[in-house]
């Protein structure tokens, strides 16, 4: 818990000083661009100060403390430069849920199918089923996900016309009202087809291979031999003795996987023009909208850190050894 807070704190500090202490400091560039437009220095400084949420007349250290207080106490990340007058926090709240939605759905799909296939591979090892799936898994887990995304667009959307690329753009259709309705949920899912497909295809190989080796390791354990000697049914041994114990180590990797998927969302969302937080970071990057960049980066880090915490909690719930130790 303390460590997670420390990470968020470090990232916040890093972004604050990156903006201020870099050569070609974006604050000065912004003020200069206003001066060129004929705005007097005092007004320009005031405008820059309101956007970056800092008071330029104060010493850097005091600016820093106020910046931190703004973020942690009021959730105030400053204003966007390109979308004049829009607070960064509002942009984040608008786009973050879409990214989390896509990442969560894909993780659930790829984790569960990957586990299932991995176990089957372990039970049918050295058959054609295992060989084909192993080859698929090792190819898919080594090719960069954004390249797979591009290939999906080229083949599924352009060549074979299975999916309509332009219709799938965006995070939801404009004519479907936003709300907690089944229609809206299905529409959101429809628009997320391509990113979800890409994430699932590129992460599933990893789960398959890890689950296969974990299952193989568990199958040799003494308690499985004992269960077999007791004459328990195969199905029960597979699920309750092998399966449950083989899955456990995979939960620790779930957290790392969330981090890399959320990190990769910048590329994937840009390719599919999916309106999530990753695409926002890229747009902010292109237009040099530094307050948005800062805010989005801090939020991405915070969500990855939170996901890590949740995965840790989940793991300690699932593994009785840790649960007992914690008491």
């Amino acid at each position: 818990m303390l460590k997670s807070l420390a990470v968020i704190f470090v990232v916040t500090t890093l972004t604050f000083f990156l903006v201020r202490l870099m050569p070609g400091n974006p604050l000065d560039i912004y003020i200069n661009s206003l001066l060129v437009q004929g705005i007097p220095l005092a007004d320009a400084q005031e405008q820059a100060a309101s956007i970056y949420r800092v008071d330029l007349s104060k010493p850097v250290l005091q600016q820093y403390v106020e910046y931190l207080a703004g973020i942690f106490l009021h959730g105030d990340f400053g204003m966007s430069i390109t979308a004049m007058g829009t607070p960064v926090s509002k942009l984040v709240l608008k786009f973050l849920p879409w990214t989390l939605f896509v990442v969560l759905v894909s993780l659930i799909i790829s984790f569960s199918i990957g586990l299932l296939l991995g176990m089957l591979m372990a039970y049918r090892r050295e058959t054609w089923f295992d060989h084909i799936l192993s080859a698929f898994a090792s190819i898919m887990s080594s090719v960069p996900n954004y390249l797979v995304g591009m290939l999906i667009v080229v083949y599924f959307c352009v060549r074979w016309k299975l999916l309509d690329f332009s219709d799938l753009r965006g995070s939801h259709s404009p004519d479907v009202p936003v709300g907690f309705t089944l229609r809206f949920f299905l529409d959101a899912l429809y628009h997320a087809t391509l990113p979800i497909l890409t994430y699932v295809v590129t992460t599933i190989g990893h789960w398959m291979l890890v689950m296969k080796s974990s299952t193989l390791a568990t199958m040799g354990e003494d308690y499985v031999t004992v269960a077999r000697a007791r004459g328990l049914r195969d199905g029960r041994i597979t699920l309750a003795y092998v399966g449950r114990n083989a899955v456990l180590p995979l939960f620790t990797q779930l957290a790392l996987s969330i981090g890399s998927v959320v990190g990769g969302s910048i590329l994937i969302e840009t390719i599919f023009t999916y309106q999530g937080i990753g695409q926002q970071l890229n747009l902010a990057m292109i237009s040099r909208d530094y307050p948005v960049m800062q805010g989005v980066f801090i939020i991405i880090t915070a969500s990855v850190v939170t996901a890590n915490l949740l995965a840790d909690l989940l793991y300690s719930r699932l593994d009785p050894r840790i649960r007992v130790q914690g008491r």
Partner: protein
Amino acid sequence: MLLRSLKIMTRNRMGFFGFIMVTLIILTAYVAPLFVPLDNSAHVEAIYEAPSRAHPLGTDYQGRDNLSQILNGGRDIIYVSALAAALSALIAVVLGSLAALLGGVFNSLAVSLAEMVLTIPHFPLLIVVAGFLRLTRPTSLALILAAVSWAGLMLAIRSQVLSLKEREYVQAARCLGLPIRHLLFKEILPNMMSYVVISFVLAMTHAMYAQVGLIFLGIIPLASHNWGVMISLAWGQGAIFSKDSSWYLLAPIAVVALLQFSLVSMTRSLDELFNPRLRTGE
């Protein structure tokens, strides 16, 4: 000696295939530019041509030959990935073994730092840092890539050294009063070489992922010609929309994907080579 090493590597067929492909691609990337010069002039009459005898991989949006761009476009990518991987392995080995051998405050500081770097999502961090620093030189890009990617390997090396240093042969060397340099380089490091080499190769794939991704997003200036620039331009110029033009996008994608896959497969053969315990039935 060399022949014997090669023979050991052939034991894993997938691994050996990867090794051959990696060697071929790297050799081609460095040798081919000497024979096939890059023709950067536009040929308006030959825009987006389908593959033919003159242009085996078709042409791009300015009528330039795709094949010669592929042949010339690997050097920078491979150089930056290898340098980034070497630097991150170096940081990881030095910090990891020092943390394990020295212990104390240095150990806890290094571990907390590594855990922190590991938690911050790498790609967004790269984007933000690259955005502020405006990287233009390949070497500085490799430095940044290494700076975000050493942490996982460092933690692994630290725990390996922790376990290795309790082995009898290391204890014996220690009793002889040999300096820490000797303990590290002569006793401990050779025993985790397979791990370090494999991590180096995997770090190369991660660096390539990040590098091509950054180029695709346009965060690294598109000054030189390489596979990433090809992918970025092909995507930006809408090369996906017809069959003839999509060669411009598919060719670099295929090379990058093949190289990534070959690097990952190669680790299996390297494992056999550096880890004598795996060689059964000899």
